[in-house]
């Protein structure tokens, strides 16, 4: 399979770095994401995020104009922080840079330091900053970078070792975060999830608009992460420096790096760590979930066995999906991501050993590349976010929506794929997508399938 190396990008399969950072900062209690750059960045990202979560998503901006680009954005950053403090009274402001401020050379940590000196008499929020030039990496780097920045900049010195566990789940849905928190609870484990978007990006109807949505990881919990018994961090394609690694290096909190728990084996590994950490056996409800899942895989295997799938999205999501596909007999033929970390193939080799045929693995792709290869590969189904829809429509192939963004379906923020229960839901959707296609294509109109 040869591949032309295109210069141009058509229909990108990635988002820009500051978007990921903004989302991660939204998962901290009383926190305001703040983009240091021009106004458009914040507005575009808000629109994009709102269309997925259907929730308010305020992102403040230093709203730089031409003269700031010439003389530096520091004064506007400070002014913006003061305004955010006045209107939002945040506990934390997460400042992420943009390509503009990185290129004009604003030294953000220095500016924030000055700000703290100048306004030391005020009740200042915690200020976290992360460097997220959009010409470097993808939204996942922004997310991981922001979480790492919080672990690095907010956590206090270790004072004791508690039984608490830190969880860095990666960019998963609010529905899955709730699910994960339940799992910890059922193991009797106290957990600090960072970030926790389970309520901030999927909250109830309200009487009064909340300037900052309730929920999120409390600052005190983040500060005390150095005292945790251990950390669990999901992702097989993470960069060298992550939140989990940072806490391990700085405070000796052991970090369990696990794959995203999608499917049976990756979830087994997760359960295993929880069982060891808690000293309890896996609760019956999860044994039952697992049993039901296996039962369902048997019931459904003939509908999907040997089906050929194209899978795209963030690397770690894609790795999890491949792991699950290898367990249910769906053959991934093309596995693609917009990121370029060089880690995807290695991770897939670890989780996909059961595959009868190794998929084509592509990093740094756009949808033009995906389409060019998928045309030859003739997939039966596609698994990924909404942005592949028009291609699937052209191919006449169902799209099983997972990840971010889901802009053309309802309930993306509640989609669950993690744990045995999430795998069950995903499995049902995959089987039904195949059945729906079969039913629609048939002239008979089968009432039993």
């Amino acid at each position: 399979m040869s591949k032309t190396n295109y210069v141009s990008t058509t229909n990108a399969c990635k988002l820009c770095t500051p978007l990921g950072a903004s989302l991660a900062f939204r998962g901290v209690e009383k926190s305001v994401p703040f983009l240091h750059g021009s106004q458009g960045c914040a507005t575009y990202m808000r629109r994009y995020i709102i269309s997925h979560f259907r929730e308010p998503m305020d992102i403040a901006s230093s709203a730089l104009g031409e003269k700031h680009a010439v003389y530096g954005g520091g004064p506007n950053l400070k002014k913006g922080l003061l305004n955010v403090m006045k209107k939002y009274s945040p506990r934390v402001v997460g400042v992420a840079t943009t390509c503009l401020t990185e290129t004009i050379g604003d030294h953000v940590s220095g500016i924030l330091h000055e700000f703290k000196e100048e306004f030391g008499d005020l009740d200042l929020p915690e200020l976290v900053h992360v460097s997220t030039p959009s010409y470097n990496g993808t939204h996942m780097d922004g997310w991981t970078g922001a979480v790492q920045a919080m672990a690095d900049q907010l956590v206090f010195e270790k004072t004791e070792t508690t039984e608490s566990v830190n969880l860095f789940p990666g960019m998963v849905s609010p529905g899955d975060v709730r699910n994960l928190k339940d799992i910890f609870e059922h193991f009797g484990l106290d957990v600090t999830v960072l970030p926790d978007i389970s309520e901030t990006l999927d909250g109830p109807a309200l009487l009064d608009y909340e300037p900052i949505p309730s929920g999120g990881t409390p600052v005190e919990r983040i500060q005390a992460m150095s005292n945790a018994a251990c950390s669990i961090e999901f992702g097989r394609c993470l960069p060298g420096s992550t939140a989990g690694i940072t806490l391990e290096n700085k405070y000796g909190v052991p970090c369990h790096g696990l794959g995203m728990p999608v499917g049976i084996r990756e979830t087994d590994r997760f359960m295993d760590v929880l069982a060891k950490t808690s000293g309890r056996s896996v609760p019956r409800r999860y044994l039952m979930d697992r049993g039901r899942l296996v039962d369902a895989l048997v019931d459904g295997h003939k509908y999907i066995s040997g089906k050929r799938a194209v899978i795209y999205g963030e690397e770690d999501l894609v790795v999890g999906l491949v792991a699950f596909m290898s367990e249910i007999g769906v053959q991934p033929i093309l596995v693609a991501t917009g990121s370029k970390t060089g880690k995807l193939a290695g991770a897939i080799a670890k989780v996909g050993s059961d595959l009868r045929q190794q998929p084509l693995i592509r990093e740094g792709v756009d949808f033009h590349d995906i389409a060019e290869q998928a045309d030859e590969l003739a997939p039966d189904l596609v698994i990924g976010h909404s942005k592949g829809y028009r291609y699937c429509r052209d191919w006449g192939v169902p799209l099983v929506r997972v990840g971010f963004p889901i802009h053309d379906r309802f309930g993306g923020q509640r989609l669950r794929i993690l744990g045995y229960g999430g795998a069950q839901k995903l499995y049902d959707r995959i089987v039904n997508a195949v059945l729906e296609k079969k039913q629609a294509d048939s002239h008979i109109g089968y009432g039993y399938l």
Partner: protein
Amino acid sequence: MKCETAAVLEERKGQVHRTGQGPIEMACNRDSLAGAVSQRACVFCGSRVVLYPIADALHLVHGPIGCAVYTWDIRGSLSSGPELHRLSFSTDLQEKDVIFGGEKKLEAALDELIDRHDPKAVFVYSTCIVGIIGDDLEAVCRTMSEKKGIPVLPVQSEGFKGSKREGYNAACKAMFRLVGTGDTSDISPVSVNILGDFNLAGEIWIIREYLERMGVEVVANISGDGRVADVRRCHGAALNVVQCSGATLDLAKMMEEKYGVPYIRVSYLGIEDMADSLYYIADHFKDIDPEITTKTSNLVRDELEVLMPELARFRKDLEGKKVAIYVGGAFKAFSLIKAFRHLGMQVVMVGSQTGTEEDYRELEEITDPGTIIVDDSNPLELSAFIKEKDVDVFVGGVKERPIAFKMGVGFCDHNHERKEALEGFVGMFNFAREIHTSAISPVWKFVPRREQKEAEHE
């Protein structure tokens, strides 16, 4: 008179006014305030929305990936033919490009994409970073234009160099380079260009059908369902009909100055404005075609005969309900206020991202006393206004929707992403139906603010 609402930052108080409370002096057309979470976008956004619907042009965003990806197929701008505009092209600048310059990459990307898609023209959008690293867009575009034999037009839309308005201007300048390069010999003397309509949900086709019934030829759609060849010859039209959001007004002015094409400002939203727009056009051509006035009044009468009974049906349920409007351009707000009168609804708040002083004076004239008028607002203010005025339905864009919904308020999307045609007489019907659908839903009974009210009554 300044507004005293806790949610309004001190520095923003000059941008909020209440009708009837002293003279209006709106401090608008300012840069957005840092940290205020403006609903505005940037220069690039302004250019992109105006040019994007030109369907047989290739739109290449020169910059990092975000600018292109957030504007990929962002509007429901429909095309009756090619759909090149629905693809999102980017040079996806990387760190090394930022250090060494992006001109080579831009040139190579243009080379590749023009060969692949054979477009009629290319628009190359500059972004923040390009303005900083100083790529010579003009030179690259000239080289590629000569090499490929099609217009390759730079759009100077560096995000930080102003607001959406400057982006509109940059877009108009780019289009103006096309104007005057096509053959105009077979254009009717009774002809117009439609400016400032983007064919959301097929709206421009509704307007074109009206014009056809009036015997008016449309030379170019600018830019909904637009074609490069039409733009090239649009200086041959007798009149520019500009929907007055300001997006394409600069182009009309440039054409008037250089080619002597007069322009009129219109709006296709609501009953009066739609009818008036057609009458203005008829008036312009009545000396050439004496029958056009009759044809137009017949058209309006026929359409209203169908529409009015339908509206009466909706009005029964909507009478007295309270509405808040927050839109991009103020022109839309004028039409919406009039449209809501036909539904018996009361507009209690109206605002825009980019209105002018003149716009706000006019808004004050046509709104009821106590109506909140606001420029460049933000979620905190909007939510405070919703609560204060006990709004039933909010009209806005996708960024306003979650604010309304979170507080249990009905919503009508009147922005780029709408999938319902809201222009023309049929659009007024669709609009009323959409407002009705949202307002009469039983779900509002369960939202906290209504549940609380119910409880108070018991």
